[in-house]
């Protein structure tokens, strides 16, 4: 799609992408209590970036997120793996999670959970994977 061909799509996308990303963020954080989680949030975020790529072009996406998506996959996998390994330092079996309730400055009493870090790994991996696939195929002639 040549640059600047669809002004409506581009302008709407500028807004919608943030809404989608916010929704993805919501899905990610709410995953432990209600439907959602790292996987869906990852796919949703990738969807937002895809919209960006459709409305503008792939270079814009690369400018917005100046990382190699393969690296993001790797970081995600590393985080997931480290979460599991961390349990070993406390004499627990691999991937044993812990949680607790803390008084946080803005949010009040909040449940913090190591499973969330694991989910972050899943999230990053899914975003990386989806974007790698789509961008690789999209850039291919």
């Amino acid at each position: 799609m040549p640059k600047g061909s669809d002004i409506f799509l581009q302008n709407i996308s500028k807004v919608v992408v943030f809404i989608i990303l916010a929704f993805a963020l919501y899905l990610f954080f709410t995953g432990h209590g209600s439907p959602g989680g790292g996987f869906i949030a990852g796919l949703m975020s990738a969807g937002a970036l895809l919209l960006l790529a459709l409305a503008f072009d792939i270079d814009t996406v690369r400018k917005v997120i100046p990382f190699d998506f393969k690296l993001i996959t790797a970081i995600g996998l590393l985080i997931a793996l480290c979460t599991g390994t961390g349990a070993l330092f406390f004499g627990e079996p691999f991937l044993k999670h812990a949680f607790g309730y803390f008084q946080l400055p803005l949010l009040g009493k909040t449940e913090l959970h190591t499973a969330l870090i694991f989910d972050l790994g899943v999230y990053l991996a899914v975003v990386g994977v989806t974007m790698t696939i789509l961008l690789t195929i999209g850039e291919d002639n």
Partner: protein
Amino acid sequence: MLHIAILIPFLWAALIPLMRWFSRIHAGWAVLPVPVAIFAYLISQMSQIGSGENIVVEIPWMPDLGINLSFVLDGWSLLFGLLISGIGALVVWYSMFYMGKRTDSIRNFYVYLLLFMGAMLGVVFSDNLMVLYGFWELTSIASFLLIAFWYRRERSRYGALKSMLITVFGGLAMFAGFNLLYAMTGTYSIREIAAQASELVDQPLFLPAMILVLLGAFTKSAQFPFHIWLPDAMEAPTPVSAYLHSATMVKAGLYLVARMSPIFAGATEWFWIVSLTGLVTLTYGSFKAIRQTDLKALLAYSTISQLGLIMSLLGVGSAAAFYTDADQVAWFGLATTAAVFHLINHAVFKGSLFMVVGIVDHETGTRDLRRLGGLMKLMPITSAIALIGSFSMAGLPPFSGFLSKEMFFTAMVHILEFDVLNAGSWMLLLPILAWIASVFTFVYSMILVFKTFGGKLKENTLDKKPHEASAGLLASPILLVSLAIVFAFMPNLLAYNLIDPAVAAIRGGGVDFESVHVSIHFWHGWTPELWMTIGVVLLGTLLYRTYTRFKLLDREWSNRDTLNRLYNGLLSLLENGGRRLTDLYMTGSVRHYLIYILIFFIAALCGTLVFSPDIRLGMDNYAPITFYEVALVVVMLATAAAVPFARSRVNAILFTGAVGYMVTALFLIFRAPDLALTQMIVETVSVVLFLLCFKFLPKLKSTKERPVFKWTNLLVAGGVGVTVTLIALASMGSSPFEPISTYFLNESYKSAGGKNVVNVILVDFRGFDTLFEIMVLGVASLGIFGLIKLGVQTTP
């Protein structure tokens, strides 16, 4: 000491390659001490064995499996040990003058020869069946290497492969037989099995074990119809033919038959199979030998025939096992003595004859009987050796072959009185066959001597002017033929020390030597045996004078060897048949492979469903069906059914996508919001990817046509659908366990702090799976990246 005697040839074989540092010395000099030392050691043990004491060595190897390196030196194995080391020494000596020193591969030759020698010693000394089998196969391998020694010749490779295939086939059969024996007795030790022999006969596995073991013995000893490898093994260097294919390896089968006699003898089948196979081989081999024009081929068939003779004697000798009275045992057991005596004689004269043929080949450059003749004056010593060897083979006085031939006739005449099996006049077949074969034997022995050394010299057909061989080359055959004369005049020297202990060992069960002793004399009166020999000489002379006139013995005829053609045909049938069979089902078409997989899937699962009594289709625990479910399923079925009928690919993708969104709806109805969310997004992404794929399909193949209809596809697809449905119904009806989901529902918030049970399972209870699933995704994305960015440019 005994185990060291077996070990030394192997150790020595490892050292022989070092001889390349001493390239001026023939490698044979380094080899010679080994057989000589073993021979000397065995001679020193002779008196102890002669007094009835066996030497036993046992070293644990795999005790838990009952496999130990246990070696026994008794009369029978001592005889073989002496043959192997004695003739081995002579052959090494002979080969030093026969094989050129300059040949690079001379060290290979001696390595193989030493390997063979060690293996053969292992075969004859082993008491453990598995160890025996190991050494047995090692002799096959060493023989294979030696036959193909001149591996650049096509005939050598053919002969080596043939002998390998046949002897290994027999070896494997024998291995199975040994294991059946183990199954019956619980031990691999031959002596322990022989001790239980009386309980074995009634076992159902007894006959299969016997036949399998005999298969091994018959293939190794070139018995009819497995003899076909031996004539082709004559492509080996002559010292190898003399050593392996006349004196030692081919006698391994005889060794085994005799060694197994204490176990199997006494069974009627054993008597008939061993005797008749031996006699048929004897007659067939001697008949074929007449028709050969190549000297080594003649000797090969002669070896086959003589091995048949000894085999038949071993079979006939087993008749003694049917009797308990000592006199009758001695009367019928005479055949065993004859077998042992002829075994020694055969090794002696056949070894010398092979060496003579090697000398003739060496000095004239040919082994073809049609080009040879009149060498008597030029090579007097060689022809004298050939004369003695041949006359001994023909069974003429005053050579040792005469004595064993007389004993052979005696045994065959005795067996007429054998009345246990109620064979009646059928027994007459044995002496008649034996006599006919002896006539043929006489004829080919005469051909061997007089066609080669008698007659006129055809100098123009020979490549070089023949002259007498060197003393070194003549030494070994001279020594062997003088043994033939010594044994003839002093047979009892041999009898007390060697033959009696050997016969006692074959008879088994602690027979004392006195009862088996038969004194061997030249002159034993005007007996039927003597008349038979006179008949052999008369008819044999007549036949030798006239045999070229008989159509049956015509040389042209000998090219049409039925058994060889059968072997070649069978081999090519196996090769071509195997290839055709593979071509038949390995079509390279993925569709065909899918059909095989799915048909197997249907057959296996439906078979299980039909034949398992515990599996039933149950409808007890079903929930009530609602309207939405029915509606969704109807729409899903409609869209799914539309996929195969779609006219274009894009339509098919869209229908598939529709099915996916229906599934999302089903997930919603069945209250799985996480699944529904994921399903929806994944379905969208995959439809987009599908469309991408089809957009970039090559123009050539993007013709829009209806899918081809095939009945097989419909049947297989229908079958799979029905099978899966039945399985699903059966699994609903048969599950006897409570689901574990109650645990997750209870514990999700309590111990994991989450209310979304699906997510808690994914990241907490079963986080390990998730870890590797994202790994799978990562690998898939890298794969796609690699395929596209680094992909090989395929030609369109």
